[in-house]
């Protein structure tokens, strides 16, 4: 992992965002040239240093504020288009044409960056990451067992709202029209309970839930719409619908089971552009069944579910009043618990950056 050990204070334009790992962009978008990035309510720039390692830093040159995004990458350094100052992947200024002395204030704030699963991930929250980027074996060592697709949805919702949605199980029944009776919803206490999703997430950052329900059997000639919805939701292979969700403040992993057998996995991550502009990106994967046509059918059903559900969720995200509401009912317990934990990570992001204070000019 490439870390900035002594970067200047990272710009933070978002007061309500939890300290966490987020996605900045798909890896494929970052090539030879620097790319302007709007993230965390701030203007940033991304480029690839030596050996192709991705760097994300504040966009404007500390000299006269020119945009480094229209600069060039030279010997792994980002060169400002204006006076040719060069910055290392660490943010340090390596070269100022016309002078030998490099002022200590000539440095860029950089963010810890990792590249994984086809995305460039950035740590938000000042200084060093407080937990490791969670893994997702379905895209790692078990990649061959799955077939899937990527998705990207731009919303006007807040980051918290997009993550909280999976914990708000009741909206599956109302907004999405799923009938689950009986229904069990449980907030998980122990990260190890979500082992099917991947390596347990740091307990401090972990939030997990378990949804277990049975769909009624509809006869297709009586209520075709419901029959179709519920048959699709259960992949036509059972009536028991189970969903394992776990995640960290900036993303989630899902495993879906029908009649106890794993059918699909989802990795959801966020690109928090501004307070009210968040993009959700992710991977949706079905477990290969050994029968290609069946795998393909499941993949189509997962695609329909993922896109159909998002098509219903996004108008809600786009129009919800972020500070609105406040009248809660018993089934909101999970959401409220999630919000308390999220707030804890918002406060951690607001704390002065660890290990960077002494670098301040």
């Amino acid at each position, binding site marked *: 992992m490439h870390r900035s050990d002594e970067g200047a204070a990272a710009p933070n334009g978002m007061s309500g965002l939890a300290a966490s790992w987020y996605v900045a962009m798909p890896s494929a978008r970052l090539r030879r040239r620097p790319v302007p990035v709007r993230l965390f309510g701030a203007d940033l720039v991304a480029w690839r240093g030596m050996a192709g390692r991705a760097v994300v830093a504040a966009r404007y040159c500390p000299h006269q504020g020119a945009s480094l995004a229209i600069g060039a990458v030279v010997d792994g350094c980002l060169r400002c288009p204006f006076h040719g100052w060069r910055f290392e992947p660490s943010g340090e200024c390596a070269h100022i044409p016309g002078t030998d002395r490099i002022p200590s204030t000539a440095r860029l704030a950089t963010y810890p960056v990792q590249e994984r699963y086809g995305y460039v991930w950035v740590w938000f929250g000042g200084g060093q990451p407080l937990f490791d980027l969670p893994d997702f074996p379905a895209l790692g060592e078990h990649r061959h067992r799955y077939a899937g697709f990527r998705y990207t949805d731009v919303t006007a919702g807040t980051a918290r709202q997009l993550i909280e949605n999976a914990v*708000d199980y*009741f*909206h599956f*029944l*109302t*907004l999405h029209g799923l009938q689950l009776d009986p229904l069990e919803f449980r907030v998980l206490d122990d990260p190890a309970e979500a082992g099917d999703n991947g390596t347990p997430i740091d307990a401090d950052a972990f939030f997990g839930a378990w949804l277990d329900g049975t769909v009624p059997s509809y006869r297709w000639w009586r209520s075709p719409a419901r029959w179709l919805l519920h048959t699709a939701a259960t992949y036509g292979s059972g009536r028991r619908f189970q969903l394992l969700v776990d995640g960290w403040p900036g993303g989630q992993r899902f495993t879906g089971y029908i009649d106890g057998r794993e059918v699909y996995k989802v990795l959801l991550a966020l690109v928090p552009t501004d307070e009210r502009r968040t993009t959700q990106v992710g991977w949706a994967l079905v477990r290969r069944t050994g029968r290609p046509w069946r795998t393909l059918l499941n993949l189509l059903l997962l695609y329909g579910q993922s896109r159909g559900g998002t098509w219903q969720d996004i*108008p*809600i995200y786009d*129009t*919800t*009043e*972020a*500070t*609105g*509401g*406040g*009248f*809660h*009912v*018993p*089934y*909101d317990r999970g*959401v409220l618990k999630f919000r308390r934990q999220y707030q804890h990570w918002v406060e951690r992001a607001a704390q002065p950056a660890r290990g960077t204070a002494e670098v301040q000019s």
Partner: protein
Amino acid sequence: MTGARHGTTVAGDLDLAAGWYIAARADTVRRRPVPLDLFGRQLVAWRDGTGRAVLMPRHCAHLGASLALGKVVDGCLRCPFHHWRYDATGTCVDIPGATGLTRTARLRTYPLRERHGYLWAWYGGPRPAYELPEVPALDTPERYLTYRFRHSTPASPRRVLENAFDFYHFMTLHQVRSREPVELDLLDDPSEAADNGPPIPAEAWIGARLRSRGLHVPAPIRALGLRTDTFSLLVDGWPGGQRLTFYLDGRMVAKELLGVTPVAAGRTVMQGWTLVPRSGFLPRDLTLLLMYRAQHWQGTREDLAVYRHAADVDTPVPVRYDRSVLRFRRFWAGWVDRAEATEAATAPAGAA
């Protein structure tokens, strides 16, 4: 009360008087809920099972989802997210999955009247201080040729409504030429405005008569046979709207209803009806209507240009002829105070 921040923009930004305002054209609110920006707030308008319009905060008391995406089901507005249902009083009457609660979620509703093709909303607490004033001419539309007008402006509602009381600007901005200068008499008693309609309660009322003698009528219009000496205008209203009657030589030639829609700070819509009485001879009436409309359009254009570039001056330089405008502003300020007191005591959402 946890939902206090619900849909609030500080009313002080708006400096809005308590009163009846046009919320929307009535025909824009049909079966589906409609998002409405009004009073600097995000509201939703919908119709209950009997077709009665309801106006309430837009965001659900639960998690803040927009009720404008919802549906009217069994006469109640149903939130799209968790299917909470609100009745026409703003009371949440159904929360699926959470029956047997001892508390009830509530959204405030704004008093609403549907008249003359508009929805009129009361701003300033849950109870109107007086009924929406009447405009009898609009109850007998068959006697008039009519048209509706609608203009958006950054001017405050106060500036739009005080304009009729600023008689001097008719001569300067609108270039009304006459032998004697335009004069304005503030009326003392609501019954003096009987031509406009039944009296408005005195404390919510302000009225004036403007007159100009020896009116200079441009030659092309004189050539049409319009010879006139005295022009007068009877205007009266409440904070939020005005009724106007125009006379030439003492004969009524047009009437107007002007309503104001305070969308947000810096965004006001002025809209309403113009009526020209039918004489039985359509060509004459049509000519009059067109002439009236042309001068209305021209005058409004001139006003809107001033509104567009104006700033509010805290302590205007006092001149004699501003007496009536200043009087209007005092009238307005009194109702702003009332609105602030009553709105502060009205929670947009809460539990009961």
